[in-house]
């Protein structure tokens, strides 16, 4: 049922929460026909509206501020109860850190681990297509000389993609492989934009290296 200020009531998807004239939509809700409906199964929160500033007094003049829309309380529905943490989803333009799981001649399949600064709870799968690896000479890119399974890559989300994958790109200088392990099993250090070197064996391997900050 519609609730105005209850903090412990549960809403199901599609449940009417209130009119849009009285509430602001927050995360987990949507507006349909000027009514606020819940989008998720969860607990309804109402944030208290900001106290409208009283009439401000100056020495010579008293002005009454006009009612701003931000005064309406915001209704939000969250799944995990009281906690404010929301599941962060990678958005277009976010910089993510991911681990390469598989390479084929046309793309590299990665598991997205960190979005921005937050560690994701679930691992989302992403694709780095061969034409998105570099900005120049896109048709001459060889995936085997850019990534290897197990590398940690900094990439940018370019598309939310389809049901299975996000689409990522490493076509900037500061994007690319940041951590790589050599064939002998040692941690490698970057030498230039396309080589990593194993300090113990002295052999270098080709990767698309991210420019260190």
């Amino acid at each position, binding site marked *: 049922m519609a609730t105005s200020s209850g903090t412990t009531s549960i809403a199901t998807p599609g449940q009417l929460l209130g009119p849009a004239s009285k509430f602001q939509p927050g995360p987990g809700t949507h507006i349909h026909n000027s009514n606020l409906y819940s989008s998720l199964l969860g607990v309804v929160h109402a944030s208290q509206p900001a106290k409208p500033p009283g009439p401000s007094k100056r020495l010579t003049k008293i002005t009454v501020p006009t009612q701003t829309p931000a005064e309406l309380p915001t209704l939000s529905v969250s799944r995990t109860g009281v906690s404010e943490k929301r599941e962060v989803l990678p958005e277009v333009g976010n910089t993510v850190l991911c681990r390469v799981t*598989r*390479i*084929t*001649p046309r793309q590299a399949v990665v598991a997205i681990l960190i979005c921005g600064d937050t560690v994701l709870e679930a691992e989302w799968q992403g694709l780095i297509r061969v034409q998105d690896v570099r900005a120049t000479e896109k048709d001459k890119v060889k*995936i*085997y000389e850019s990534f*290897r*399974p197990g590398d940690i890559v900094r990439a940018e989300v370019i598309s939310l993609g389809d049901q299975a994958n996000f689409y990522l790109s490493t076509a900037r200088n500061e994007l690319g492989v940041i951590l790589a392990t050599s064939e002998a099993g040692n941690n490698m250090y970057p030498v230039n934009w396309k080589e990593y070197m194993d300090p*113990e*064996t002295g052999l270098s391997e080709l990767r698309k290296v991210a420019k260190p900050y």
Partner: protein
Amino acid sequence: MATDTKSLYVLPGDAIDKSLVPRHKKQPLRLGPGLRHIPPSAIVPTTAGQLVVEPRKNSMWMEYNGGRYVPAQNDLVIGQVQRSAAELYLVNLAAHTASATLPQLAFEGATKKTRPQLAQGALVYARVVLANRHMDAELECVSAATGKAEGLGPLTGGMAFDVSLGLARRLLMARSRDEGGVEVLELLGAEGLAFETAVGRNGRVWVGSDSPKTIVLVGRALRETDEGRLDVEQQRKLVKRLVREMR
């Protein structure tokens, strides 16, 4: 023992005596297949086989007869077309392994309009372009530098026989009689049989000829050389016996 490398057989993980490792003033030491360098100075075999040392080129490697073919770059192989996907043929190099990919444009004179017509089950003689343990192997039937086939391409007629990997490697050596100890194909040719062969490093030998009797005879000779581990003298006797039986 130190100089008699012809009979030095090692097992994986054996320590190799430092005196066996060749030294050269200028060239660095080159390790071939089957050996692994563990820094700082240990050289360890990874397969069971014969250790071969070449002091002039300052290189050492292992000769071994494995059961499973692992694709390596620039190998010549005989593959069987499994099916064709978008712009690709999926080619089978060995039983129960992942297919290798062969682009449909990687043939001599192939353009987007004129492609080769390879049916399922056809044999091709190809070179391995890309092979590593993270991806499927890629093949080509044309030399990338010159654009000419140079013997590669579909193999029509004839029959492919399975041989061991060791025999395939020895057949492909430049001086197969001296270094490899196989002369059976040359001997059969000297007896007057007309046939052509293609040897694939993945353990397949294709034999083509006008007469099926010749094909069967060559196949039998190869199989008996392989299974009996015959040396050059025994191969000579084998060839004479087979040709006599045929006539």
